[in-house]
């Protein structure tokens, strides 16, 4: 029984620290993962800031690229290379790379469909629909036309949120299916079904 104060736990693994840190920033999760993907190739710090500022997600982030980078440095997902100053570079650490890979290989999508089999059809429908960018209302209209009556109703944002979190769709003024999800959809359209066969993770990033 908890005594109301957190017990001392054994030290988490570096990858877990990064995972928890990113998970604790749901509003900036997409940007943080993109930064890690970006810096898998070392880049000048200034270039990173500029690139990140251009992300669609940053338009309404309440934080600056500098703050996000600072968080990633603090949790060990990024490391600086060189002396602070004009020549400083940023690189994703090994643990940071693990986190990127775990988010991008399609595994989360596979797990989502296994975890929510009742909604599998709608999830795939949304993925297919958003191959062309769609607004939330367009997705909602498409789903409403055949909302099943045999289970508690969910709203369109249930699907959007779950797919976004699983890396299946991303927001850039409209919802769009990610490359990872497109690849998986193509594979499902052929006979090779990664959701059954346990096919290879696609290492391509969403950035």
């Amino acid at each position, binding site marked *: 029984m908890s*005594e*109301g104060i957190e017990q001392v736990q054994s030290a988490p693994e570096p990858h877990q620290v990064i995972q928890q840190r990113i*998970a604790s920033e*749901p509003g900036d999760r997409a940007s943080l993962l993109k930064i890690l993907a970006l810096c898998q190739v070392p880049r000048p710090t200034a270039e990173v800031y500029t690139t990140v500022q251009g992300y669609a997600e940053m338009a309404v982030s309440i934080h600056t690229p500098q703050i996000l980078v600072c968080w990633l440095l603090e949790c060990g997902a990024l490391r600086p290379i060189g002396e602070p100053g004009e020549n400083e570079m940023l690189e994703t650490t090994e643990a940071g790379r693990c986190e990127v890979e775990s988010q991008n290989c399609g595994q989360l999508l596979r797990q989502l469909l296994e975890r929510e089999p009742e909604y599998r059809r709608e999830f795939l429908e949304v993925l297919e629909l958003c191959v062309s960018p769609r607004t939330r209302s367009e997705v909602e209209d498409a789903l409403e036309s055949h909302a099943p009556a045999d289970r508690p109703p*969910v709203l369109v*944002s249930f699907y959007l*949120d779950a797919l976004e979190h699983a890396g299946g769709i991303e*927001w850039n003024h409209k919802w769009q299916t990610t490359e990872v999800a497109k690849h998986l959809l193509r594979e499902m359209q052929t006979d090779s079904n990664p959701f059954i066969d346990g096919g290879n993770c696609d290492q391509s990033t969403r950035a």
Partner: protein
Amino acid sequence: MINQPGLNRREFLKATAITGVAAGLCSGTGFAVGKTYLPHVSGGTRIVRTCCRACISNCGVLAHVKNGRVIKLEGDPEHPMSRGAMCAKGLAGIQALYHPNRNKYPMKRVGARGENKWRRISWDEALDTIARKLMETREKYGAETVFGSTGGGGNPEFWSVARFCNAFDTPNWFEPGCAQCYLPRTLAFGMMYGGPDTSIADSNCLELYSPHTTPIKCLVLWGTDPSYSSPASGGRALVELRARGMHSVVVDPRLTPDAAKADVWLPIRPGTDPALMLCWIRYIIEKHLYDHDFVMKWTNLPFLVNTKTKMLLRESELRPGGSEETFVVWDKATNSAKPLPYPWDDALQPALAGSYTIKGVEYKTGFELLKERSEPYTLAKAAEICWLDPKQIEKAINLYARNTPSGMSLGVATDQNPNSVQSAMGCATLEMIMGNVERPGALMQRFRSSGATPIFTYIVSPALKLLSEKQFKKRLGVVEYKGLLQWLAAHAPSVQQAILTGKPYKPRVWLDRSGNKFAVLGNASSWLPAVEQMDLIVHTYMYPTSFSAYADILLPATEWLETNMIVEAINRVFARQAVTHLWETMDETLFWSKLVHRLAALGHENCKRAIDPVFMGNELPYWNSMEELLDTRCKALNMTWAELKKKTPVEYCSFKEWNQHYVYKQIDPKTGKPAGFGTGSKKLEVYAESMIILGRTGKPFAPFPLPPASRDYDPLPHYLEPAESPIAGEVGKKFPLVMTNGRLPIFHHGTLRNSPWIREIYPAPELWIHPKTAAAHGVAQGNWAWIESLRGKIRARVRVTKGIAIGVVYMERFWNPELLNGQTHGWREMNVNMLSKNTAPFNDVVGTYTLRGYQVRISKADGPPQGVWLKPADFKAWLPEPSDPTKLVEV
């Protein structure tokens, strides 16, 4: 000639800071009503007449201001409810105003949540950032994924959050109170009477403030303790009434000061109130102590009820062309069913009780059904369930029933477990069958109002028309708990579950204007995973709390001494006027308006409507300044806000005009008949068919049709044994003690735990425990104890007292501001809401969960939690310090 108020007495009060004394000394001072009083002062000090808002009593205050600083507070004798009294909460206003830890300007989080790293930002940046995030969230996920919350912790403008949510077109807002605080009573009395409930703390029961004239002979304080909850107003008034010979009965697990002065104290087992109320009903019916004539003519108890459909029989069902609005009685004279035209027909002899058959269908009178419902609850049975002495129960009932006019004030205690609405219905039933309605001495009255504070006692209307039908139907919990519709609120546990499961959708942006959600939400730690999933949390308050640690943007709210508002008291209207303004704090009423304006500028269609005078009409478009809003409300007084400030207080009618009884008998000029009560039948609806209709349709509150709840709401009070019970089930074996909470005179909900002098009085929460219970569990006076439930484990300091029943323990809410920067943020060490229960079963009408009446166990602890402040010297860090005059800031 008015005597100078006892300045020596006030100095004494300030020195003692013991609120109970304040109530005891404010009697018989002979202040004249209606004369402006301002004490003589010197040295460039000005006196500002204002009203407190340290709690919801709004007592009158005279603030002494010198060189722009508030240097002294004292009560205002002109206030007809507090009459110059002031409690410790109000007197702590100076320390609250100048607290060194005030939120001074908007701040944005730059560290991880909980790291307490912030960057100062401007109001422009704060509003712009929040507005853009809200627009993006709406576009991506839908407006319903944004939700608001507020609290009763002295919030001066309760409906601001609801109005904002309607403007943004999200149906979701909640407060930790609502279904757990006051809504059950406003709902029950509103549906059954069409008038105010009998809460003293919420400034009803206004009959009590005329001690020289009110004939009330006996007052029952059921789950309420005015000496603690409203010491300067209600508590003070009761001192006078008891001194004049009024009897009193207190039903409360704790021996409060009111209980100590009562003729009878019934230390009821927490959570069992409807059982005792049904016992009272049964006794009163059996002994014919009810007001037969009143029940017959002014309640719906003689009406016939179809026992299968549970609906009242209408004339339209009896014969073709009959009225849908005329109900049917059994006429003893003709031994047949007859329609009873409103209000009465002397030609009929309606049966009050009985069972009858009409065309093969069984009907019973409402009275018969009430009798049947109460039948099992004999004195012995109630005593067994409620852990009381049957003789004391009987004594209490007879005091109430044989000393009339009497009154029963119901407090928040019964709102805080799943029997909530049933308790409120039980209290309303008792008052109604006793005829304690709108006659001199009765607590249930519909006295006049000025119209300046039209929404309960608030000036901001929720503007329901802004919320679209499509969005309204997405309100979380709205189908099952339709009673929440009276307050337009969502069901807090349903919001939590939606966040955690993502179904039916995931709320993700949280705008909160209140104190410490982690101190007051039930099962507080269950909210942490939900908080961690928020894309954005905005917290608006006067100082940081545990909840602030998880926020992304902190906004500085004004303290009550910096706030303008209209306050109505009896037949007078006061101006609460800001006496100073510090840093960049903003009245939240204005913040929400600015946010709506910003959203409108970004293209939010509904927010554009919210600022459009043509669309909003008499609901008021959002204002550009507080003066604009206040001027509009002051039109009801035929003056401007500036004029009200100069003249305050203003009598909007004479006391005689205000003190009108028997409103139901006043003739309606349109019909030529008595106006009746504010119900569909114009009778008191003791048989609350309206509850059935509410559950099936949402009427009268739902602006759009809703599907029915999973089962019908009960039209009569009933009793359910608490889900965690000491007498049944496995939980009670492992956790044998019943936990209850209750007010203290020095706090209001989660507030003032950071007030230095108040913390000196009460540095740590006390666990009240009976000597026998203490001995059985190995704890003694002054020990520290662990208290544990199925949900958590905390500590408190033991107070051994016979002032709590055997087998019951008491503890008030608490959190530790001194630990804000620590790992726990001060909400887990000694917070009783780490133990409370927010899971089903809920009250079926409003969804109440369990804050009182659940099971705990205790054991001795080695000492207090690490780092908590206990010694007077510890709190010096919170004392205001002199500084240069603060710059006047316009925001």
